[in-house]
């Protein structure tokens, strides 16, 4: 039998490196992201495992050295090892990222759930409130806040957390409404379950489910916001190796010691990218299992 084969449309080029699956269907991007995030988590929890040096130890004789085998990321203006500082800075940066996102989601959950479940009045009131908060761009709110309360990890967390909360709140409200109107909530009511039981068993867990993905996305963004504050001189106090502070300090040396600006920047980008791509992966996974 003579068979002719044709492939309609344009030939499909499959790039194995990008779409190949490892570990049973998990995309490479997700694996790399997890590895990168794991690195940062280790850096945050046990920086000593990744570097033997002291992030604060100055060596005035070795200031502004370019990256080398001794100093992988070079040294800063006080002769401190930049790699060590980036590793040690992970803790505060991650703390800001997680703290701000956690705070934002905490506020958002209360507002969003109240709006989604409360009556028309509560919903209207909270929606108006969110509208007001939305009118305050994150950076503006954070700026007002930090200028007045002084720069520190806490104020950064609160500032960025407050700034990003309304977005999450609106999302959670939508989610709560969707779940509340869903078939399975109707079915649960149909079975005679009490209101509270339905809330506890169905509405809360399902409305909060997509947040896992959102949190990973939010952490990276919060760190980026915080670094914006550092740029405005509202960052964490020196000599903290918090990444935003490193970026801010590195800026003036950009023409003489590029590594001071580039390396911490790459750390932020790597973390944000890894978090985003893992978040996306989780999102598609969760959405896939949603009806």
């Amino acid at each position, binding site marked *: 039998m003579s068979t002719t084969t044709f492939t309609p449309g344009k030939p499909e080029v499959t790039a194995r490196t990008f779409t190949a699956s490892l570990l049973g269907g998990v995309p490479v991007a997700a694996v790399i992201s997890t590895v*990168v995030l794991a*690195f940062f988590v280790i850096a945050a929890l046990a920086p000593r495992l*990744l570097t033997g040096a002291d992030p*604060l*130890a*100055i060596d*005035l004789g070795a*200031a502004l050295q370019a*990256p080398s085998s001794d100093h*992988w990321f070079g040294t800063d*203006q*006080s*002769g401190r090892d930049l*790699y060590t500082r980036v590793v040690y800075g992970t803790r505060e940066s991650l703390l800001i990222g997680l703290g701000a996102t956690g705070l934002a989601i905490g506020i958002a959950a209360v507002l969003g759930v109240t709006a989604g479940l409360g009556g028309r009045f509560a919903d209207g009131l909270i929606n108006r409130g969110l509208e007001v908060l939305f009118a305050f761009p994150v950076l503006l709110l954070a700026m007002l806040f*930090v*200028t*007045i309360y*002084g*720069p520190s990890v806490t104020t950064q967390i609160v500032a960025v957390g407050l700034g990003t909360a309304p977005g999450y709140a609106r999302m959670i409200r939508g989610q709560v409404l969707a779940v509340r109107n869903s078939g399975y909530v109707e079915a649960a009511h149909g079975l005679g379950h009490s209101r509270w039981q339905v809330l506890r068993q169905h509405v809360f867990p399902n409305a909060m489910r997509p947040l896992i993905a959102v949190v990973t996305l939010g952490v990276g963004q919060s760190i980026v916001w915080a670094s914006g504050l550092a740029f405005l*001189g*509202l960052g964490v*106090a*020196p*000599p903290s190796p918090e990444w935003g502070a490193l970026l801010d*300090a590195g*800026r*003036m*040396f*950009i*023409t*003489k*010691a*590029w*590594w001071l*600006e*580039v*390396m911490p920047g*790459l*750390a932020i980008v*790597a973390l944000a*990218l890894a978090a985003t791509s893992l978040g996306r992966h989780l999102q598609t996974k969760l959405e896939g299992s949603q009806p």
Partner: protein
Amino acid sequence: MKNRQPAYQPTSRSKAVKAGAVASAAALSLLLAACGGQTTSAEAGTGEKVDGGTIRYAHLQEPACVYGGWIQQAFLSRQVLDSLVSQTEDGSIVAWLAEKWKVSEDQLTWTFTLKPGLEFTDGTPLDAQAVSDNFEFWQGGGNGTVQAHIGDYYSSSRAIDATTLEVKLSEPFAPFLSALSQGYFGIQSPTALESRSEAENCESPIGSGPFTVGEWKRGQSITFNRNDAYNSAPQNAKHQGPAYVDSVVWSFIQDNTSRFGSLASGESDAIGEVPTVDFDTAKAQFDVQQFLTPGRPVTLSLNTVEGPFTDVKVRQAFAYSADRKAVVDSAFLGVVPFEGNGTVSSSTPGYNPDVAADYPFDVEKANVLLDEAGWTERSAEGTRTKDGKELEIKIVFGLNSIVTAEGATALQNLQEQVKATGFKVTLVPATQAELFSGQFSTPDSYDAQLGYWTSPHAGILYINFRQNTEKKPNPANTTFYNNAKIEDVILKANSAKTTAEANKLYGEAQQLLSDEAVAVGLYTQTSSVASNPKVKDIWLEASQGEPVFHDAYFTE
């Protein structure tokens, strides 16, 4: 992507990752670091003088008003206002609006003879009455810094005739003329002061100077236009008569990289505050002038009424604990000099150089002093403790508003160094709002505070170290150190008959303050200008380091 794995366990992937990181970082670095080979617009010309033209000068900070009591405002008002006298680099006083002057035997009456026939740019005659009006304006709250300098001494002033002004003081004040030479003391048209709105006087004060304020594009630049009728340059100017250039566009470029970049790319003819990182490059390619600002250097004022620094031994130990010269040299890449004298800077007439060497880096001495002071225990981290309390020092500094990034680096270096002797330093960068709203002005808010105070004379000691009493408060005394004996020496110096005598007494006061270690010197406040070699004769005046464009001209 950028994470280096520990070298002892290289896997194939980490190698690949590393290679990628190295490659991308290298690519970036090439793009970022190619700056050294910048072609400058400084090409060799004939060197002949050209009349006219516009000098594009880029400055760091943009204040809210042209005239005021902040040094940033003096930078601007120096371009449009003339003062009575001018101070030269060696500290002597020369004629400016005042041709000559004399002081009475009791040092209480100063008589100034003004140059005749002068006018403000609004046509108001610049006579003795106008100057007297300015004294009254200052005294009435027109300029708080003027009040800080002469408020306690000034008594009254009057015009004897059109060109003769008499100023009466309540006490003899040796640095009076020197004080008058500062930009804060620029003489403005009384008509303008009276008839115009606050906003107008803020934005475009009317004086008799070489330039007038043209358009102020907020956030960008101020244009200073030539005063064609100008004929009252100070004696130390390089020429009399109107300025050579048509105008100066004074732009504000806060970002160091951009500011220097604008000079390198030819977008600016001159820049102020040459960034330390670019200082060597600037010196190689441009004309660089640096001025060490007189007055109080950038020093740590130690809080002598609350916290560990109430004990003089702890203060002294702190001063011994750090190699402050190394700290400063490293942070400023050797561009800004270390200043060991915490009360008066090296370029100030009356500076006592011995004091600068009082507290060399000496860990042993520091340890002995701390032991003596009772800080004998050490915590797990190595911090000294006394009665269970850690030897913790909270240093407040106004990052960006008062202290530059280099200064912050110096503090960080210091912080690390003093760890060895058991000090635990916490750095508190304060925002401008916190700082100026007085949140860090009270004794309970800091252990040490970093700051400076410009002044063309050592009488700054009077401002900073006069006693702070309930009857006569002195909030500028940031150490809260009250010592009647030292105040007495300072007062004597202020009232000395000759400058030499005054300076000797000022030197004595510096020594006494140094013995008490109330202020630990770090570095000198500086101002600098880098200019394209095509532009000649920009100079930095000696009272505060403001660039003067009156004599500047372009060459072919």
